[in-house]
């Protein structure tokens, strides 16, 4: 079974990230958020939804997100930083408590920032060595800004 990093551990990936809208939906599926929203009355239970870069999070503001076990955020390229804001807004604005999973083309060197904005699971592309990636998860032991893990900037902690 493919592996991923979740909460600082390398574990089996039990969910199925569905990118093809025609693919059959199962209880393990993570399906596109837009698709879920437009078909939610007819769609069966899913593990979660995923956001495409460009989706934003506002269209989910009336949805009870805590019904999902996981919300994925897709990085079309690792230099596309929109997902950093999306994760933070999911946590801080929409109060989502479940798993936020990075999907797509992000890289291990981004783990530190991704964790700080609220991601807690990382489904890397296949060629990434997860042990080596895990070693990069905390490049800094302290931060100037507040973040999802501690909203207080350093000036409230100094």
């Amino acid at each position: 079974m493919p592996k991923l990093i979740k909460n600082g551990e390398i574990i089996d990936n039990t969910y199925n990230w569905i990118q093809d809208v025609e693919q059959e939906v199962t209880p393990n599926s993570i399906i596109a958020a837009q698709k879920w929203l437009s078909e939610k009355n007819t769609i069966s239970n899913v593990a979660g939804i995923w956001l495409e870069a460009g989706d934003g999070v506002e269209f989910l503001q009336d949805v009870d997100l805590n019904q999902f076990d996981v919300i994925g955020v897709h990085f079309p390229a690792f230099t596309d930083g929109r997902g950093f804001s999306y994760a933070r807004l999911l946590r801080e604005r929409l109060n989502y408590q479940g798993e936020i999973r990075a999907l797509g083309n992000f890289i291990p060197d981004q783990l530190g920032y991704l964790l700080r904005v609220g991601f807690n699971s990382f489904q890397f592309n296949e060629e990434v060595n997860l042990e080596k990636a895990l070693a990069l998860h905390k490049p800094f032991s302290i931060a100037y800004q507040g973040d999802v893990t501690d909203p207080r900037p350093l000036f409230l902690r100094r």
Partner: protein
Amino acid sequence: MYQYDAIDQQLVEERVAQFRDQTRRYLNQELSEQEFLPLRLQNGLYVQRYAPMLRIAIPYGMLSSAQLRKLADISCRYDRSYGHFSTRQNLQLNWPKIEDVPDILAELAEVQMHATQTSGNCIRNTTTDQYAGVISDEVVDPRPYCELIRQWSTFHPEFAFLPRKFKIAVNATESADRAAVQVHDIGLQIRKNDAGEIGFKVMVGGGLGRTPMVGVTISEFIPRVDLLTYLDAIIRVYNQQGRRDNKYKARIKILVKALGIEEFRSRVEAEWQHLRGKESTVPMSEFERLQGFFSEPNYETLENNPASLTNKLADSAGFARWFERNTFEHKKAGYRIVTLTLKKAGQAPGDATAEQMQKAANLADQFSFSELRVSHEQNLVLADVRQDQLVELWEAAKEAGFATPTLGLLTDMICCPGGDFCALANAKSIPIAAQIQETFNDLDYLYDLGNIDLNISGCMNACGHHHVGNIGILGVDKKGEEFYQISIGGASGHDASIGKILGPSFAQEEISSVIQKLMNVYVENRSEEERFIDTYRRVGITPFKEAAYAKAN
């Protein structure tokens, strides 16, 4: 100036360790070229035409003599014994080896320096007035606010992969804008409201590059406690909504223009409502802590215009000239602000040799409380010089090549490294600067022409700020040959404007004669006390254009 505590020090050291590991993995081919690129850029490392270039941050231009000595020392041991001071108050090394960069960063960390976020699509080094804290007409010293912004922007987890680079500048005087805040992604003008509270007029969407624009006001007054939440709101909107499909349309100015300032403002306000008053609201204790680092040095009680100064002014035309051009009024009686110019003929504008850096550091120790500033015009500044020591300083500055008395004049050019170094450039810029310096070498004539900003960029990226030069020169590529487009009428102060292109571009050897023709038009048309830019604004582009393209008789 700001002093690191154990936490700041730990952060820069952890950054060195992180970058050392990234460099090692890159050299071992564990990190691809494509992956390493943004990572090295976020640490100021470019791969240039002939060699890598490392841009070292000089936060808001403040430098201690110990730091400058370290830069001189690094340039000797890891580079070719010189450096280039940039328009954003940083220092660039043109010939380091990639594998040496982690060691260079480790040495910088020893003197509380780094190269963090001096490039890449992230929040860059914040810049300000090189005279901050020593002029009488500023609202407050902007440097504590610059330091606040530096800390907030350093390793900001949400904004490390923005659509494009992001530059913030702060100005604190109404009478002048030496930080060119209107041509930054965010320009902050410090002001007080009617109740006497300190805050910021916020301008957004200024910038140079391919589509030059003057920033527009998004808020007339943001109280200082709300500064960081407001900046977060602006950049969060930009991070999500700025264009990412075309790098030439990715700056915030394009988003602001596309939406219109009203719509952009309402999106920022909507975002801000969620952030305002939350944890990132800055407590008074933090302002006080930061202000504490910028308290006044131990000034002596002195009188203005001591005899040693006035006598020399009367006796020496050379000294008088230097005093008039290269020194500036200080808020304290008996003191003067001195600019050490890096615009000597035969030296690329903004370049300083290691020896010059050592000498400047010595001058700072001897004359100015061991501190210096780097100016946006690529000069060094000694901010606190006793008037009764000016003669002595002048002699020493002359000897070191720092006393070219042309500050603000035609030959005090801003100039990017251009095609001699930069991989992006279409044309060389340093030889153009050299040509102009050689042609306009008569000081009396330069003084008669008065204040003129001449800015040179080797390509559309506009690192030499050509759009906002009274005269702007832009290197262009015409079928593989280097040509130069000239624009006039740009300005970067409170009256910021973008220059207009004169017409078809010129060959390299024509530049000085074209500039000469423009000067002739100015001299013929000017009224008393009119600067070049004033005459241009009154008479328009036509007479300049006609003169520049007139056929020889």
